[in-house]
């Protein structure tokens, strides 16, 4: 079986752009959640989000590609920025950086998970206004006069596969490409699928993970209607997202993207690449419970982790670090703990937990950031703090610390689940020297 290693990390997150900045700020316990800046949120009961610090997309694409940034929705921009970081970190000379690329284009895959991309409300409404009949649209006028006001490429801004398309064009990647759209599980499923692609020999390298923004009015209203977000921390955003904490009352929307470069081990060695860790196992499963909440028994969630461990040839007792999904929604965190107990049993209290969403917010399809955090922790031998997990939920003691810890980490797991019941887990292993 071909082995797969991680040789590059690209991150765009509320606590910084670039893997190093993200990691430094994560360890510094910085929180990227604050009052929403990109629009006036005062009409919403939840007014906070994890927003990415300002950036100029034109600085992350080749000069020749600047025009195309006009048709990038925010989600696409996040993926493009994360991809640039991943390529630079991996030291790979793609078409974005040279006229003589040294990467094997047809053997380079791209699996970028995405969410349901929201349209730019102001752009659309300016056109809708031309066809309004009171508070409704007169479709006949829309057909005649309204739609023509939209840019011809309007639809292409919002297709979920455009994250991968722009990245494949910018970096000239012609291998297997896929776009997983399974909400919060998208990134991990995409990484798992890319892993299989390399294992079976259909590619030597792949860029994979996901990106999404939910820091938009349309996403916020949906999350409020779904009762997923905290409405009590508008004045205390740094304490808002409280994974596995008895005082938690909801999660916090955010935006971001996390992409990994996966590379076949011999290929990475041959080019003298920096290797962060081995991707040793992947598992996926589905709840069959409800579309609106996770199975409270955690049965399938646990199965995904168990499958990933078996895939890695590891036992539950081998796991040193877990980056859980940890949304800070009490019913969800309970279901997650139930699933984890099925895997780890009493040993659950020994596994070091790094519930990083307290600092980043819930990154949805951008949870590749969580996977990257597991890789960076393992590589650095440092465990990020659990800044807001103080009172154990239901009295269940977990191995959490309000401070950053040093530890030898041989095996790390990152696991997620989606609203809708898709579960995915990845197992990372320290490469033996």
């Amino acid at each position, binding site marked *: 079986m071909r082995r797969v290693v991680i040789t590059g990390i690209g991150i765009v997150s509320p606590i910084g752009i670039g893997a190093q900045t993200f990691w430094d700020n994560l360890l510094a316990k910085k929180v990227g959640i604050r009052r929403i800046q990109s*629009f006036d*949120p005062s*009409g*919403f009961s939840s007014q906070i989000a994890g927003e990415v610090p300002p950036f100029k997309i034109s600085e992350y694409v080749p000069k020749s590609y600047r025009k*195309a940034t006009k*048709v990038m929705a925010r989600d696409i921009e996040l993926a493009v920025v994360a991809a640039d970081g991943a390529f630079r970190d991996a030291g790979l000379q793609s078409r974005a950086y040279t006229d003589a690329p040294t990467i094997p*284009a*047809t053997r380079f895959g791209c699996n970028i998970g*995405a*969410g*349901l991309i929201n349209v730019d*409300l*102001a752009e*659309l409404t*300016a056109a*809708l*206004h031309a066809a309004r009949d009171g*508070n409704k*649209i007169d*479709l*006949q006028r*829309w*057909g005649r006069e309204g*739609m023509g006001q*939209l840019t011809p*490429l309007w*639809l*292409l801004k919002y*297709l979920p*596969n*455009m994250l*991968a*398309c722009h990245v*494949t*064009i910018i970096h000239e990647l*012609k291998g*297997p*490409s896929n*776009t997983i*759209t*399974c909400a919060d599980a998208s990134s991990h*499923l995409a990484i798992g699928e890319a892993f*299989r692609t390399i294992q079976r020999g259909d590619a030597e390298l792949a860029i994979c993970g996901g990106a999404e923004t939910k820091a938009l*009015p349309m996403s916020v*209203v*949906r999350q*409020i*209607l*779904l009762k997923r977000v905290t409405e009590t921390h508008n004045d205390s955003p740094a304490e808002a997202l409280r994974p596995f904490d008895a005082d938690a009352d909801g999660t916090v929307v955010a935006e971001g993207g996390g992409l990994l470069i996966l590379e076949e081990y011999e290929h990475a060695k041959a080019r003298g690449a920096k290797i962060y860790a081995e991707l040793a196992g992947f598992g*996926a*499963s*589905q*709840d*069959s419970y409800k*579309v609106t909440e996770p199975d409270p028994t955690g049965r399938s969630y646990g*199965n995904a982790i168990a499958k990933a461990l078996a895939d890695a040839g590891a036992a539950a007792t081998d796991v040193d670090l877990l980056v859980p999904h940890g949304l800070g929604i009490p019913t969800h965190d309970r279901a997650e703990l139930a699933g984890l107990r099925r895997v780890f049993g009493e040993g659950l209290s020994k596994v070091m937990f790094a519930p990083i969403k307290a600092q980043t917010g819930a990154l949805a399809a951008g949870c590749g950031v969580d996977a990257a955090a597991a890789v960076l922790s393992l590589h650095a031998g440092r465990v990020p703090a659990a800044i807001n997990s103080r009172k154990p939920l239901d009295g269940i003691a977990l191995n959490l610390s309000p401070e950053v810890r040093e530890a030898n980490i041989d095996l790390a797991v990152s696991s997620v689940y989606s*609203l*809708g*019941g*898709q579960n995915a887990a990845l197992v990372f292993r320290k490469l033996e020297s």
Partner: protein
Amino acid sequence: MHRVVITGMGWITPMGHSIESAWKGLLAGESGIARTSLFDAATFPTSISAEVKNFRLADHIAEVGSHIDGGRNTQFALAACSQAWKHSGLDAAKLDLDQVGIYLGSGEGSLDFDAFTAANLRAWQPATNTLDTVKWAEVALELMNVTRELEQEPNMPLSHLALLTGARGPAMNCLTACAASTQAIGEATQILRRGDAQVMIGGGAHSMIHPFGVTGFNRLTALSIANDDPARASRPFDAQRGGFVLGEGAGMVILETLDHATARGAKILAEVAGYGSTADAFRITDQDPQGRGAIVAMQEALRDARMTPADIDYINAHGTGTRENDGNETLAIRSVFGDRAKRCPVSSIKSMMGHLIAAAGAVELICCVLAIRDNMLPPTMNLHHPDPECDLDYVPNQARPARVDVALSNSFGFGGQNDSIIVKRFVG
């Protein structure tokens, strides 16, 4: 590596709600295209489409329950899956449901058009051309419904199928535009080959026949505007082709490892022989004009199937009826098949059924299996004006009997996503 076979099929299409009725229509060269009725499209550049007609979820599944909250895409998916499941003879009570997975290429659910547009209009400040997000929030929270919002998420068809079937194995949705459900079935095959599941439900569902869907495609000038002659509006490979006709629907197949299918005595409909997937890496708006990505996708599928072009008896083309696609696809087929290209029949059912977008590939793969079963090739209708760019045997205007043991289906998505899949007659 496990061999993977197809043991059940189901679809909901603009030409019928059962495999046999729609297949009969396809072989008879009928059309599912008519004036759009789902909304008032009278003044849109395109006012025709291929709608699924007279659909009632209750006609297809025993307990409708909260499935009725699902979007049009989800309801089509549930009905198609139910057909495929029954067709396969699978019995949930006898299955290890942790070994039953789902891989769909489904699109997003239907937008709540009235609530969404009302929120936007009521919050619009014409004086400044800005949206008052405070007002927007107030109206949106008043008008929008939690279920209708959630059901727009593209993973919802998948999640509903898990509830319908009890499947708890690996589950994913890929949304790679018009290539999505071919990709889903190809990737589901890989999961089974590796032994990560015993059974996979594969396919896709989509409906973009709504004001913004048609708006988007009309702005791209991708749609046919032959509104006066719906049945002849979709003209793949014809010199007078002018774009595709938007359709909707779902296609689902039950895939199993050969061992699992054999052990339970299942009737095997066909074997999945090969799959290839590539990216053009060219432009978001155009296909690679030399068809390079499509060429490699077909070559990869052939390599994966350990076949040569001489083994392929029929190609179900992507064949959208756009000027660009049909020329490029022809070029790509010629490049891969060489001398064999002109002797290998190629057809596009989109001439009759329209383009089901994310669901297109699954429906077209099912046609390949039926072509193998019946040794019949569905025609490319409306092909009357030869285009020097398109010089293959497109099975014009009339279905044709032909020995078909192996068929290849192409699907190409906006942004340069190329997928090819090969199915063959099952020989034990």
